[in-house]
């Protein structure tokens, strides 16, 4: 302790290098663990890596798919970041995304009108659906003080059942067909309602949803950094008491952030729906909500940093599709993802801890 304190002044410069090394070390450990897992279960490491590469980066089609996978991840992450800025932890994106897709599908299937308008309406509907689903825990929190984390988490499971319900009810979203032979899914959206695809095989082929998301990213970056809304949001996130004293309406701003987060997750569902999947299926969220949240965490709540992280995770997901050729189960992808998240949080936490040890100076967390 004493030694640490006296060393403090000299530690400042090497600290950056130290952190970098720490990051490198923990990522190495994570990847080594994943490698060991592959090798120990009797698979070839190089084949696995090659398959992942093929699936995510080799050729325009693969890159396109990686981008397609990254698109909803990024959108979910952006929502999570907005929430985090307001000091709220929304972990219900998986459900919000599903409900978004549900509403998007309902709009896309049943709304009459020119197809491009239906397409836009479907996306907006998806956002609205997600916001609605996030709105329930938001209301519960600001009205009754129900913990947001638990609220949003539990809503995920309610969403899954609701999704299953609507696709097994004839008068709701179940697909047409002969009774007794219909799957629990909606009809296929008509061609015109689907988001247009950009590029043509064998070149980069991806859905145009990515442009929507990039635009949203830029907007969020600017708003968070320069707008009064972003300023107030940061205030609320850092110190709710001071923010409220300065006239910030916590319920409106914080609840709004939660709604935005839900809307983004819902929109991600909408883009998955009309960008790739084409019909509503109760299992379509497929961990995108959870992983999007992890993207935000790894990106340490920086919207710009979220772009490469989302691409990386999207690439992993895309690459996972190629693992079948090596016999390595696809679940490897989630293992690697989780390990990487751990690797990403560890050094920061460790650095924080040693800083605290050195200075014994607290961050104000008084309750």
């Amino acid at each position, binding site marked *: 302790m004493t030694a640490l304190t006296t060393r403090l002044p000299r530690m400042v410069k090497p600290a950056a290098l130290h952190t970098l090394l720490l990051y490198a070390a923990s990522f190495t450990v994570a990847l080594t663990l994943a490698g060991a*897992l592959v090798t120990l*279960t*009797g698979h070839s490491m190089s084949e696995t890596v090659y398959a992942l590469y093929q699936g995510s980066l080799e050729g325009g089609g693969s890159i396109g798919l990686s981008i397609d996978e990254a698109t909803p991840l990024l959108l979910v992450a952006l929502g999570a970041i907005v929430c985090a800025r307001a000091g709220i*932890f929304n*972990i219900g994106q998986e459900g919000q995304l599903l409900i978004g897709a549900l509403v998007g599908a309902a709009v896309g299937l049943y709304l009459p009108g020119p197809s491009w308008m239906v397409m836009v309406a479907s996306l907006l509907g998806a956002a609205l659906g997600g916001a609605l689903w996030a709105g329930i825990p938001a209301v*519960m929190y600001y009205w*009754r*003080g*129900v*913990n947001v*984390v*638990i*609220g949003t*988490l*539990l*809503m995920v*499971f*309610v969403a*899954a*059942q*609701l999704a*299953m*319900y609507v696709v*097994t009810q004839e008068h709701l979203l179940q697909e047409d067909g002969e009774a007794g032979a219909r799957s629990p899914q909606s009809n296929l959206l008509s061609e015109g309602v689907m988001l247009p695809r950009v590029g043509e095989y064998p070149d980069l082929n991806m859905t145009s949803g990515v442009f929507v998301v990039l635009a949203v990213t830029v907007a969020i970056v600017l708003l968070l950094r320069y707008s009064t809304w972003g300023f107030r949001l940061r205030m609320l996130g850092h110190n709710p008491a001071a923010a409220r004293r300065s006239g910030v309406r916590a319920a409106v701003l914080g609840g709004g952030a939660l709604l935005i987060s839900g809307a983004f997750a819902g929109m991600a569902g909408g883009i998955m729906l009309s960008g790739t999947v084409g019909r509503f299926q109760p299992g379509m969220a497929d*961990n995108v909500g*959870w*992983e999007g*949240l*992890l993207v935000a*965490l790894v990106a340490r709540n920086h919207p710009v940093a979220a772009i490469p992280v989302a691409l990386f995770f999207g690439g992993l997901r895309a690459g996972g599709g190629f693992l079948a050729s090596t016999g390595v*189960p696809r*679940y*490897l*992808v*989630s*293992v690697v*993802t*989780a*390990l990487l*998240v*751990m690797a990403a*949080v*560890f050094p920061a*936490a*460790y650095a*924080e*801890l040693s800083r*605290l040890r050195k200075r*014994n*100076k*607290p*961050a*104000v*967390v*008084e*309750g």
Partner: protein
Amino acid sequence: MFAAIGEWIAERAGTLNISVEAMMLGGAFTAVTGAVATGSPEFGLLCGIVTGLVVALIHANLSHRLSVNTYVVGLTLNVLVLGLTSYLADKTEFFQVAKVAIPWLSDLPIIGSALFDVRWTTYLLIALIPLAWWLVQRSRWGLEARAAGENPQSADVTGIHVNKRRRQALLICGLLGGLAGAHLAVAEVGTFNTNMTAGRGYIVLAAVIFGGWTLRGALAGCLLFGAADALRLALPALGYELNAQLLIASPYLLALAAMFFLAKSHRGPAALGAPFVRGIT
């Protein structure tokens, strides 16, 4: 039930532990693996417990030593364990043999009463309930753990190692969570399947909240949610038609409703989920 007790302890000490799902799933997986490898279900239970402890150890050290957000850790652990168990289960195919190799745990039939014809782990559970209650409500350790959950700053100046207590509580939760998974796999079902726990950990979470952070309430919540599930499965047998989705969602809806209506009267531990860092006056 086991898991509910564990989760209750962890929450009273101030950790909102969402990795209980991971503990259960990991416990279930290694329990079957262990049982198959040695042919002894008891050894399987032990493996399950150890796995739960390992998950808890990671969680505890990350969030109560390195102060990483507990939800982040919990979430990541859930993803990790689900991926890992699915990965391994898919590959090594042992769960096919599992059923054969697992002899049913020693039955203790009391003649004439099917009610007492349960596996011995159930008796363990019954024994654990008062033990856990005593541990938390009456023991020195429990007092300190509760203090750590209520007001870590005050606890700290009183000489309690807040994070240590929280880690210990989490370890107990891991032990019980692992046991819960193992019980599910080895005693109740006899095999492992991918994502075997299927969200039961979250139901446990809901039960603890539903029970207003009392052990009685948490167990009652468990029984209620269990009953809802049983009802769902039994209703067709009774000839009633009720929407299955509604029933599956019912634990979550009930927990949400409980939180909504009881938010004012049933308060959770004051410092639930808040990390503790020493040095704040």
